[in-house]
Every structure is written in structure tokens, then in C-alpha cells.
């Protein structure tokens, strides 16, 4: 477990060195500041639209950051050749995959906390507020979604080059975000073959909309029941574990040859 922690720490160090997170934070702050300055027929103290656009931006940025970080972890080690040193430590491939996933999940979750903090600050400065418990639940469930996204990114990157893995991960998670929640509606117009395909999609893909508490935050519905939050957390943990397992299965017998790495 110590080795897994060390590997996760390396992901943290790499993220701190890179400028992705800082750039995204500056972008988010600028966009929210601009949005907060819109004249609303002379009526002040309205923050719903800032929360709405801000939360959407946080979800999109979290998605981009999670997949971008997860997908480059293993291929970069291979390209640099550091994979040989690591596996000779001895670090098992299972520990390598788990450490990379854990590091990605934690670092992106930490980024999410910063994004939510910026959003909360802008909302408070505009005279609005958020229910603290609902906000905590939203951040936690969003973090669980990131756990699933990171695992998907890592699983894609075990057998593909980074660009192909990123494209595949975007297609998979984009489908989970946009199409899977619409399946019950799409089935009304689908033929038998398409219907079967949609049903497979519905039950096989992770339902990322379950981690999305934006409606409660924006429209003041208050926090969800803790039992529901626990159920969704368990659901996310199962999917994350499945994809980490898939990543390990894809990586455990992968052969590396010096000078011919992905």
C-alpha cells in the first residue's frame, strides 16, 4: 500500500509542475467574473445563472482534467522509459495501475474543490449563497464521478497510444453523459435492433447523471437524502473498481521493448 501511495504522490508532483490546473482556474475565474457583471434589467442579487454556468464549467473542466490526466499517466512512463525502473523496484503492475488511478482521482478531486471554492466565492461576492450540506454532497458525488472517469481514462490508455486513448475515453464518457440518460426516451422511437443496443448501453454504461447535484444547488432544492448519496457512492465505487480492474487486465501482460514504446 505504501508503494501505491508513493505512485499517487508522483502524480501529484507532476500535476503541480504542469500549468493545466492553474490555467483552468484563471479561465473559470475570468468567465464567472464576466458573467457576474451582466446587467439584469437593473435587478441585483441574482446568482442562479452564475451557479448554473459555473457548475456546468466545473463539470466540463473536471471532465477534461480527469481524462487528460488519467490518459497520459501510463504512456508517458513508457515513452520516457521510466516504466522499466519502476517495474524493477519491485512495483507490481497492479500497484502501478492502482497508484496511478488513485493519484489521478485525488489530484483532480483537489482541483474540483478549488473550482467549487472559486464558484462559491463569486456567488457570495454577488450577494448569493449555497446550502453548505448540498454543496458538500455535490462536491463529494462529483469526486466519485471523477473516480469513474479516471478509471475509464486509465483503462483506455493501457492498450492505446495517448491520443487514441483520449479520443476513445471522450467518446465513452460523452455517451455516458449525453446519450445514456436519454435511452428511456429514445426507446420510444427505436426499432427492435436499435432498442436492444440502447438497452445494453443503458445497463452497461455508468450513469454519470447520478453524480450530478447541480439542480439541487441552482434551484435551492436542498441536500439529497444521505441514504441516496451513499447508494450513489457505492454505485460509483463499483464502476471505478471495475474499470481499474479492466485497466489492470489490459496492462498485466503488456510487453515493453526498449526503443519501440507507444
Amino acid at each position: 500500500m505504501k508503494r501505491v501511495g508513493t505512485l499517487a504522490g508522483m502524480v501529484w508532483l507532476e500535476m503541480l509542475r504542469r500549468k493545466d490546473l492553474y490555467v483552468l482556474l484563471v479561465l473559470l475565474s475570468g468567465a464567472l467574473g464576466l458573467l457576474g457583471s451582466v446587467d439584469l434589467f437593473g435587478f441585483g442579487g441574482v446568482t442562479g445563472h452564475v451557479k448554473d454556468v459555473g457548475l456546468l464549467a466545473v463539470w466540463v473542466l473536471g471532465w477534461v482534467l480527469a481524462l487528460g490526466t488519467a490518459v497520459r499517466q501510463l504512456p508517458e512512463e513508457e515513452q520516457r522509459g521510466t516504466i522499466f525502473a519502476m517495474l524493477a523496484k519491485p512495483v507490481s503492475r497492479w500497484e502501478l495501475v492502482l497508484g496511478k488511478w488513485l493519484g489521478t482521482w485525488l489530484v483532480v478531486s483537489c482541483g474540483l474543490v478549488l473550482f467549487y471554492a472559486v464558484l462559491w466565492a463569486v456567488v457570495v461576492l454577488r450577494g448569493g449563497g449555497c446550502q453548505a450540506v448540498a454543496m458538500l454532497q455535490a462536491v463529494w458525488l462529483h469526486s466519485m464521478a471523477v473516480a469513474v472517469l479516471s478509471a475509464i481514462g486509465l483503462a483506455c490508455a493501457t492498450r492505446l497510444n495517448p491520443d487514441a486513448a483520449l479520443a476513445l475515453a471522450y467518446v465513452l464518457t460523452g455517451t455516458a453523459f449525453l446519450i445514456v440518460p436519454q435511452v428511456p426516451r429514445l426507446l420510444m422511437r427505436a426499432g427492435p435492433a436499435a432498442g436492444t443496443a440502447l438497452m445494453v448501453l443503458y445497463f452497461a454504461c455508468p450513469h454519470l447523471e447520478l453524480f450530478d447535484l447541480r439542480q439541487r444547488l441552482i434551484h435551492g432544492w436542498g441536500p439529497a437524502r444521505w441514504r441516496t448519496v451513499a447508494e450513489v457512492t457505492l454505485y460509483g465505487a463499483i464502476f471505478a473498481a471495475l474499470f481499474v480492474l479492466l485497466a489492470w487486465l489490459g496492462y498485466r501482460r503488456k510487453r515493453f521493448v526498449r526503443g519501440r514504446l507507444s
Partner: protein
Amino acid sequence: MKRGPIHAPWIPWLGVLTLWTVGFSLACRLAPGRPGGDLAAQGVALRLLGSGRQAVGAALFERADLYFHKGVPHKVREAFTNTWLQQLEAEISPRLHLHAAGGEVAEILPWLRFVVAADPHYVDAFLVAAHFLATDLRRLDLAEQVLLEAQRHNPKDYRVLLEKARLFLRTRRFEQAANALDAALRCWPSAQDPADRQTLLDKAEILTYRAVVHEMGGERAAAAGCFRQVLALFPERTHLQRRLERLEHGEGPAGEDVELLRSLFERPGPVHCERESDEHS
């Protein structure tokens, strides 16, 4: 055999033809002849957006409607319901039919502002903003400003003038209300279909308000004339027949008429829920 890249000369022309077809189709769909056309738009971004801003405006108005229903989307038919995944989703994102009320409706205003920024000829957005400012938010001054802005962009739209008249009636400015109602009658039906039921209902509303204002000024004959026009449009409104008879006999308003007057002044205006068939909570 090695194959090189395809250099057929018809490919660019096919692209041009496709783009022209798409552009023509969009133009047919998006440009139903708004006053001033796209060149009336202020700002480079809006001009570049062209007629697409009408579509953007409509999408943003949908967003405002979503806020009025506290983030709950329209109900649609689904192939299956109540699976454990859907139950979990309903717990996370509630699906009750509620309306924003009181100060909550202020959250709708940004989206209405975005609508009119994208498409200043989207009169409904101005009307809804003015209505909420005047009623739930009790900011009649801001409502009047909104309607002035609406009139600047849509000077001949009777709906703006009718909403102004409602505002003047609420604030007991009867002379200004009379002027606005007369102007609304002159502009009716503007760009609307005169045979459409809502357009006819609007005309009846203008005439009824005008009749009431006439009556308050002691002009019974003019009031009776307006009521007759309403009856010509909607003969089923028998209560107006009784009212007309009383006016012709020189009688004052009865108890039910006083109630009618009160209800006219407190009438909620053009905002209505299009999902009344859904269950309300």
C-alpha cells in the same frame, strides 16, 4: 498498387452545393421577416450570428421556462419508468411540478435578459420580465423600463402596449392606460395571425380594459361600444351582455361588476404555465 490522394475537381463544388443547401434551409426556417432584418442588430457578434440569434433566443427562453419550473424539465414519454436507476435519479434530481414564486422568480431574469440580448424582437421575453418585475418582485419602475426598451425595439407590437396598459392600470394611471390601450388597438394584430385564438383574446382584453377605463371616466356609450365589440368576438361571454344592458339603462356597476373590475386590475397577465396538464405539487 499505390493509391494517391483523391483530387476530383467536383469535390469543392459538392461542398459549396451542400453548404448552400444548408444555408438556404436555415434561412427558410429562421428568417420569417423580422422588422429591420439582421442589419438591425447592434454589435458585431449579433450581426455575425445573423438569423441564428432567433434560434438562440428561443433556446434561452426555454431555459427561462426551466427556471420557472425550478429546474424540472418537461415530462416526456418514456419506454420504461421506475427502474432502480430512475428511482435513484429522481432522488438526485427531483421531478416535482413546482413553480418559482415570490423572490425566486428573480432567477429567471438573467435568462430573459440573455434572450432579448440575442433577439430584441423576442417580445414574449420582455413581457414575462415586465410581468415578474411588476408582480412577484414588486418593482414597477423596472417593469416600466423593460417595457420602454421593448417598445424601442418593437414599436408597433400591440402586446407591448397591452402590457404597458396593464402596468398603468395596476398603478391607477388611467389616462396613460387609455392612451396605451388606444395605441394597442390601432396596432392590433401587429405581426400576429388575426385569426389566432390568443390574438383574439388579446383584442378582447384590450377592449375590455378600454371599456372599464371609459366607464370610470363616465363615458358609458363608449364603454358599451367596446363591450359590444368584445361580444362580437366572443358571444359566449354572457356576463358582458348583462353588463351592457345595465350600461344602456344608465345603471352603475353591480356587485359582480365590481368584482370584475378588481379581477381586471389584479389579472396576472400573459404568463401562464404550458404544463397545466402535469400534476402540480
